[in-house]
C-alpha cells in the first residue's frame, strides 16, 4: 500500500481537481480529509496546505483509504480552536452514489457484494440517465464518474453552482431525480404522476432511454419474470384485476415460459381487452402502468442520503478498495456499457508492473512521482487530468471576466 501511495497515487491531479487552480486556495486548504487506518481507526478533520503535505501525511499514516469532505469556513485541522459557530460546511461537490445492493430485489445473476458484467448494465443505464439529466436539465458540465472499486459508482460534480448548493437545494435536486420510493413492503415504487396525467417531461425523456434497456436487460438478459417471485412482483404492478387473474392462471400452468413470452402475454391481454371497446381511460391507465413498470425496473436507484448533505464524506478517487484491491478509477459515461469492473487494475497488479519496468532508466533510488505513466493506471489518470483541464479553463475564464469588469 505504501508503495502505491508513494509512487502511483496521483496526488497532484487530485489536488488540482479539488482546488480548481494551481495555487492552493480555500477549496483545498479548508477541505476536510478523513483517513481510515488499519483496524478501523477513523481520523476526521484533517486538512492540508498543498498536495505535498497531503502526500506526506498519507504516506506516514498509510491508510486503507481516505475520504473527501466539504470545504469548511475554517481549516478543519483548527476545528478544536475555533468557535463551533464559525465552523460550518460551505462548499462541496454535488455527489451521488449508486450501489448495486439497491438492485438486489430485481437482479437475478448475482446478489450482495458480487457484481458481474451482466448486472453492471443496471449501473450503466443509471449512469446514462443521470448524466443526461444533470447536464441537460441542471446545466452542469464538470461531471466525474468514478468506479467505487467493487459494486457501485460515484459521481462528483465540480461546477461552481453545484459547489455552492445549500443542503435544502441538494435535497430538492435529489427529490427531482428520485423516482423509486418505498421499501421492501411496497410493491409499486414509482409514483410520479399528478392525478392521471402523463409522465412529467423529464421522466418521459428518461423513459425513452430506458425502454430498450428494459427489453434487453430485464426481459432478455436477466429474465426477471422467470421465477414465481419475479412474475408475482410484475403482477402486483398491473392495475387491472381480470388481466392479472388470466395471466396468473396461464403462467402457473406453464411456469417455463420465458420472460419475453410473459411480457408478450401481458401486451396481448391488454390489446384483447382494449379491442373489446374499453374506454380511453383503460388504455391510458395501462400505458401509464407499463411506463411505471419500465421505470421501476431500470430507473437509477440513488443512495439519497449521500447527496443531500454537504458534510457527507465520500471515498476519494484512486483509492484502493480494501476487499477487492481494485483502484477506484474514473469512468467515461459515454463508454459505460463497455466498462468491465473485473478489468480494473488492482494494486498488486500495478506494483508488479512497476517492478518489471522500474530498473530501466534513472538508476537506483530515484522515485519519480509520475510512475503511474508506466503502468496500466495511465489512461485513468489521464482521464482525470483531462477533466481537470476543463475546470482550470473555467476558472481562468472567470478570472478574466472579473478582470475585465474592473
Amino acid at each position, binding site marked *: 500500500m505504501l508503495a502505491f501511495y508513494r509512487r502511483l497515487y496521483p496526488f497532484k491531479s487530485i489536488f488540482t481537481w479539488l482546488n480548481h487552480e494551481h495555487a492552493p486556495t480555500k477549496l483545498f486548504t479548508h477541505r476536510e480529509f478523513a483517513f481510515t487506518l488499519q483496524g478501523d481507526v477513523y481520523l476526521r478533520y484533517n486538512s492540508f496546505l498543498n498536495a505535498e503535505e497531503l502526500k506526506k501525511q498519507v504516506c506516514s499514516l498509510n491508510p486503507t483509504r481516505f475520504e473527501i469532505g466539504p470545504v469548511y469556513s475554517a481549516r478543519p485541522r483548527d476545528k478544536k480552536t475555533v468557535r463551533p459557530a464559525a465552523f460550518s460546511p460551505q462548499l462541496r461537490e454535488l455527489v451521488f452514489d449508486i450501489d448495486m445492493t439497491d438492485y438486489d430485489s430485481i437482479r437475478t445473476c448475482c446478489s450482495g457484494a458480487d457484481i458481474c458484467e451482466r448486472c453492471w448494465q443496471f449501473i450503466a443505464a443509471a449512469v446514462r440517465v443521470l448524466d443526461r439529466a444533470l447536464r441537460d436539465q*441542471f*446545466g452542469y458540465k464538470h461531471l466525474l464518474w468514478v468506479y467505487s472499486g467493487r459494486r457501485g459508482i460515484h459521481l462528483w460534480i465540480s461546477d461552481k453552482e453545484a459547489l455552492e448548493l445549500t443542503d435544502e437545494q441538494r435535497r430538492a435536486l435529489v427529490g427531482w431525480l428520485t423516482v423509486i420510493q418505498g421499501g421492501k413492503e411496497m410493491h409499486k415504487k414509482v409514483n410520479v404522476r399528478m392525478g392521471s396525467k402523463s409522465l412529467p417531461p423529464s421522466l418521459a425523456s428518461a423513459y425513452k432511454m430506458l425502454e430498450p434497456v428494459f427489453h434487453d436487460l430485464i426481459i432478455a438478459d436477466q429474465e426477471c419474470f422467470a421465477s414465481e417471485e419475479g412474475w408475482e412482483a410484475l403482477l402486483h404492478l398491473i392495475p387491472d384485476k381480470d388481466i392479472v387473474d388470466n395471466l396468473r392462471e396461464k403462467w402457473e400452468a406453464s411456469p417455463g415460459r420465458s420472460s419475453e413470452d410473459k411480457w408478450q402475454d401481458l401486451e396481448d391481454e391488454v390489446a384483447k381487452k382494449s379491442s373489446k371497446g374499453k374506454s380511453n381511460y383503460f388504455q391510458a391507465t395501462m400505458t401509464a402502468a407499463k411506463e411505471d413498470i419500465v421505470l421501476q425496473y431500470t430507473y437509477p436507484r440513488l443512495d439519497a442520503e449521500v447527496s443531500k448533505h454537504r458534510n457527507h464524506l465520500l471515498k476519494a478517487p484512486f483509492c484502493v478498495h480494501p476487499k477487492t484491491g481494485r483502484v477506484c478509477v474514473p469512468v467515461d459515461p459515454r463508454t459505460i456499457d463497455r466498462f468491465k469492473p473485473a478489468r480494473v487494475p488492482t494494486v498488486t497488479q500495478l506494483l508488479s508492473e512497476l517492478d518489471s519496468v522500474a530498473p530501466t532508466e534513472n538508476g537506483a533510488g530515484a522515485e519519480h512521482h509520475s510512475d503511474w505513466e508506466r503502468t496500466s493506471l495511465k489512461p485513468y489518470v489521464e482521464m482525470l487530468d483531462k477533466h481537470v483541464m476543463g475546470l482550470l479553463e473555467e476558472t481562468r475564464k472567470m478570472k478574466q471576466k472579473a478582470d475585465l469588469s474592473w
Partner: protein
Amino acid sequence: MLSRSEYRRSALKDRKDGIVETHSHLKYPFRLNFYDKPPIEDITIEEFETCALDRLRVLAEIESSYARNRTFKELTEVMEPICKKYLPLNSNTAETVNRDAERRKDHVGHFVLRLAFCRSEDLRRRFVKAETTLFRLRYASDDTAEREAFLSSRNFDWVLATPEEIQELIPSTSGEAPGRYYKVKWTRVPDLVEKRRVVLKGGMAYVPASEQASIVLQEFQSHLEKDLEMTAKALPRLDEDTRIVPILDNLSKGFLAGVSSEWNNASAAAGDALTADMIDEMAYKHFPACMRNLHMCLRRDKHLKHFGRLQYGLFLKVLGLSIDEALVFWRKAFSKIQDDKFNKEYRYNIRHSYGLEGKRANYAAKSCQQILMSDQPGPGDSHGCPYRHFSADNLQSALLTMYGEHGLTSADMPEIMATVKAGHYHVACTRVFEITHARQGVKKGEGVGGGESVTHPNQYAARSRELEKKAEGKDGDGDVMMQGA
C-alpha cells in the same frame, strides 16, 4: 433601535429601486410588506412591546399549527380569527379603517421580533418559517389587483418565457394554449423542483403562472434569512439602553412556551364555590397533567415540597378555592404532620400566597411559560411540566394512568411523544386536552377553544369545566354546541 448598517442598506435600496409608485395617500401603499426598510420614527416602549407581543401570539399559533400537522386550509381557518384579533390588516378597499395604523403595527412588530429572534440559528429558522407562513396567508387572501400592484412594485428578477421556449419544452397534449411561464434559476424554487412542479432546462426552472406564489415566498424567505443574519451580526454592537434587552429576552422565550395568556382571577368566578373535598373529583376530571401529577404526589406522599405547593396552591386559588377551604385542604392533605407544625410552618405560607401575609401581593397562578422556564425541578421535586420534565417512558405511563379513562390510548402516544420530542410541550398538552375531551365534542385542532393552545393550566381546567357544564346543560337547552369562541 436600528443598526446603522441596516439603515444605510435600506437607504441605498431606496435609491436603486426608485421611489415606489403610490396611487393613494397611504404611507404604506400595500397590505403586503417585504420589510425592506425598518421603521425609523420614534416608537414608545409600550408600543414596542405590544406590537411585538401581538405579533408573537400570531406566530406562536402558526408554529403550533405546524406541530399539529394542520393543512394549509385548516391553518387558514384557524388563523383568521386570531389574525383579526391581534394583527388586523385590511385591504385598500377598507376605506373606513385606519389602514396605515394597522400596517405600521405590522411593520414595527416584525422588526422588533427580528431583534428578538436573530440570536440563535434555531430561533432564526423558526422565526423565518412562521413569518413566511404568515406572509403566505396574507398573500393568499390578498385582493388580486392589489397583489399584482404589489408584485410589480418590486423587482423579482424573473423573465417571462417566450412562446417558442414553451413550445419546445412543454409538449402541449391538447390544443389549448399553454399559460404563462416564468423563468428563474432553479435554485430559487427548490420546493417546486423537489415536487417536479416545474420544467428544468440548463439550470433554469420554468415555473407555471399558477406556482408564481412559490417564487415570491421563496424570495421572501431568503430575503428574511439574509437580513436576520445581518441583524444578528449587528446586534452586539447595538448601543442600547437597558430597557429593550429584557423585553427581547422575554419575547424569545415566549416562542418556546407559547405566549402566556393573562389568566387572572376574573375567570374563577365562573365556577361555583369550590370546597376542599371537591378537589379530588375535580383533579380527576379537569386538571392538566402538571396538576394531576402534583395532586397524585400529594395524595401519595401526604406532602409536597415548596415549589410544588406554590405551583399547585396558586392554581387552586385561581380555580376558586377560598383561603378557608385552602387551609382545610392542605391541613387534611398533610395528614402525617402535627397541627402544631402545620400551623407554624405551612399556614403562613398558604396565607401568604393568598396575599394575606407579608407584602400582601396578589400572586397570579403560574403560566405554562413560567412552569416551563423557571424554577427547574430538582431531585425529589414534583412540580414542573411533565411534558418537559419527565423522561419519555415515565411521561407515557403517567399520561396513560391519568387519562386512560378519559379516552387516551396508547395509539395516541406516538403523535404526542413526537411533539414532545420537538420541544412543543404546550402542543402536546393541547393534543391531550383534545383527545380527553373528544366525548364532549372537541375536535382535533380545536384546542382549548377557537384553535388556541394551552398556555396556562387554569385555562385548561376552566375550559374543561366549561365543556362539562355545556354537556350537562345540553339536554335541557337542545342546541348549545361548542364551536370554539
